[in-house]
């Protein structure tokens, strides 16, 4: 009798030693708890949406004011040409473009998709991001193709004689 009892005790599968997981001790949540958890998440999401609305309504500034900085001479940029500059700090690359009609426009050079640098494509009057083939309209900064969904931040310009100044921007 004693020998048989010992044999029964020893019969433990090998995999139990490798995977010592006791399913019976696992914690299962009930449907009630799950519904309560989802409703709590719903309350948190509603609170976050309210916070975003409050930030957008009272704290968000779509325009930013910056110093007036001379960035280029207008005569140095031909129609269809472009020029790179940094504004408002040295860590903010920007691009100044002149379209075929002679209009000057400046944008942040940082793609709104994953922050690669956009380049000017004068043949299509576009700004092109070579990383993921994103396209922006050079006349407005609005995305026209590829992954980007937000437009490029615009830099406001003031032309005085032959001098082009950057003066703040629009997000």
């Amino acid at each position, binding site marked *: 009798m004693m020998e048989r009892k010992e044999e029964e005790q020893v019969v433990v599968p090998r995999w139990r030693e490798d995977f010592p997981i006791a399913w019976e001790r696992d914690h299962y949540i009930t*449907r009630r708890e799950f519904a309560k958890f*989802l*409703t709590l998440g719903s309350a948190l999401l*509603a609170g*976050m*949406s309210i916070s*975003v609305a409050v930030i*957008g309504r009272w704290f968000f500034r779509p325009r930013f004011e910056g110093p007036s900085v001379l960035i280029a001479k207008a005569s140095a940029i031909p129609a269809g040409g472009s020029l790179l500059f940094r504004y408002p700090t040295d860590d903010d690359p920007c691009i100044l473009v002149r379209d075929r009609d002679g209009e000057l426009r400046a944008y942040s050079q940082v793609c709104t998709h994953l922050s690669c640098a956009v380049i000017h494509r004068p043949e299509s009057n576009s700004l092109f991001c070579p990383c993921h083939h994103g396209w922006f309209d050079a006349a407005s900064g609005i995305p026209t193709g590829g992954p980007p*969904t*937000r437009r490029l931040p615009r830099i406001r310009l003031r032309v005085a004689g032959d001098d082009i100044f950057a003066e703040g921007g629009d997000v």
Partner: protein
Amino acid sequence: MDTPRQGLPLFTAIGLLVGTLVIIQLWLLAAGIDALLSGHPQVLIPAAAASIVIFLINGGLLLHALNFDHRVRTRRPND
């Protein structure tokens, strides 16, 4: 009349409905943040209002389910 057998489909259906509405709330939040960063803050108030309405629906569904649970559990056997 409420019976315990109705509890399983009721809680399953309410869980599915609340889960779907929470996903819509997540989309509203993501779209709101994207609109904020794009410089279109005029859509944020409607998005927040929709999210609050969805939360109220979720809260109402949960209360309904918990009230059902309470009624079934406190009912006398001969009722």
